[in-house]
């Protein structure tokens, strides 16, 4: 068991982060070189001002017409995304690991808060999954990969909760937590989780088109 722990917390972590970083660079390079090669014209329609206008307006909860049409979904979606990144970056256990490994440190959030947020993230995943089943317009475009992606995202949080509360074997839970997180990191560039990388560009592009060419709001 200890040897597995050393494996997942050492070499596998390095591999996962490397794949994430290199994979992300590759995906961004791929999309930009494709644009440069075949759709150069896109660049001439990009306006930083209108791209940012669009990104900012879509980053404020309940700010857009569609968010107000779906107030509960919007609330859950924002909690989910905020929870995801806040826990990833500011959880004390994560920061301590970084400090021990690299000597870098930054402020952390209280563990009790992180705990609540982790439950919220898992709850949000369940909400998204149920929505995929009960809402016909979502069910129509859902296949097993959509559930797999939700599972992929929920797993590190679920195992993180188990490890933190020492439910089940702590070492096993920690191993599962690290392993599932590593699988998630590796998946980001190569699945629809890539929206993490692409969304600012699709949003920015359409914001530019709407703002600069069409003189109209895109929210």
């Amino acid at each position: 068991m200890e040897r597995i722990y050393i494996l997942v917390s050492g070499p596998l972590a390095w591999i996962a982060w490397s794949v994430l970083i290199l994979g992300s660079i590759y995906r961004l390079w791929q999309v930009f070189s494709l644009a440069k090669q075949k759709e150069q014209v896109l660049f001439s329609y990009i306006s930083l001002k209108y791209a940012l206008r669009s990104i900012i307006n879509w980053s404020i909860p309940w700010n857009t017409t569609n968010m107000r049409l779906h107030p509960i979904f919007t609330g859950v979606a924002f909690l989910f995304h905020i929870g995801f990144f806040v826990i990833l970056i500011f959880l004390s256990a994560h920061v301590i690991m970084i400090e021990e490994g690299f000597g870098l440190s930054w402020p952390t959030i209280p563990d009790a808060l992180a705990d609540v947020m982790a439950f919220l993230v898992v709850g949000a995943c369940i909400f998204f999954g149920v929505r995929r089943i009960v809402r016909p317009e979502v069910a129509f475009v859902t296949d097993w990969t959509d559930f797999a992606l939700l599972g992929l995202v929920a797993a590190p949080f679920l195992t993180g909760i188990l490890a933190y509360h020492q439910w089940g074997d702590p070492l096993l839970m920690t191993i599962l937590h690290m392993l599932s997180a590593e699988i998630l990191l590796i998946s980001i560039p190569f699945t629809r989780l890539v929206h993490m990388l692409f969304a600012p560009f699709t949003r920015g592009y359409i914001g530019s088109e709407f703002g600069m060419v069409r003189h109209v709001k895109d929210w």
Partner: protein
Amino acid sequence: MKERVWIKDEGIERGAEALTPERIERTINAVLGNETGARLMAYVETCVHCGLCSEACHFYLSRDKDPSYAPVGKVKQTIWPMLKHKGKVSVEFMKQATQIAQTECNLCRRCVQYCPFGIDIAYMMSLVRRIVHKLELTPLYIQDTAHSHSATLNQMWVKDDEWIDALHWQEDEIREEIPNARIPLEKEGADIMYSVIGPEPKFRTQLIYQAAVIMNVAGLNWTMPATPGWDNSDMAMFTGDSEIMARLKRAHFETAARLRVKKIVMGECGHAFRSVYDTGNRVLGWRMPPIPVIHALEFYWDLLNEGRIKVAKQIEEPVTFHDPCNVVRGRGLHEKAREVVRAFCKNLVEMHPNREHNLCCAAGGGVINCGPPFKNARVESNSAKAEQLKATGVKLCIAPCHNCHGGLDDIIHKYGLDMELKFLGEIIYECMEKPEA
């Protein structure tokens, strides 16, 4: 929920007879491989299948929320399988994809405003249309219109002399009302070239009359061309026929350049504006139109604010205003339009939602041009608009777009609404000061 009927159309049927699986595969891969790039890749891979675009679509809303009419549902039934199977899809699939992309989406871009990622679903539906065009599956009626564009450079098989005759005829008519009025043809160096769509000389000549009266009263230095290139409409844009689109727009811009005008003013048409202002210029390699293009709504607003036209009387009865997608989501003219409407009408009752969140008339994007086979399905697919119109309780609707007129007219009849439709130019013509008349 009323089930979707797969409609028989002669163009689709005949085209399908000539298809082979190899040709479908080759064509899909040629279009997706050669004519798309980063955008399609990012759109397809970024979409998380959340379904949040659904409520943007009037087809979805009007079809009892049938998910197969939701924007992402349409992508699922067209683009996704094409990509997944690398073009290996059946003839039947292509026939259905044709109906979906060509007759069940108005390319109104409302869903683009509802997608959290700003994914341009209208772009993907246009891509399907491009494939449909290359497979010669385009519905018969709109294909005939594209043929007319190709043969005559106008939408309605108007012959060159008929066009000039129509303008002379209207000039004669106007001179009974305003003795010295002119419709100047081929006036080089005029400030404005006024361009219209094919249906105006064909069966809505009163609109040319009214526009000419406005021009004359405003004392403008304007002209209309006597050569092909006068028509700004463009159904080729909606059949995915980029080559004919490019020929049309080149003829239009070159006519304006030949006349050395400062700007092109166009009549109250939405799709033509999209073509000249947004799409046609791009296909010719112009980032923005090479000659400024002013839609009628903006033109009226300018005239009113420059004091060139004046209000003589106001419409007393309450009116409502329909926002055409292509000049509102396509150019943000909703406030200017309202200022003009309020100047000429005492009481403007809004539809909800309105402005850039308007619901489309379901005629746009070439859907009405697919003709009689699809008419019932189209009108049934816009009960949402009928409810919106009805809720205003007014009897006069101003719709500054030809396609919207066609679409709304069908809706008004089908749903038994007691409502009259007018162009904004008609209202201005009725209500403005005409000193020489």
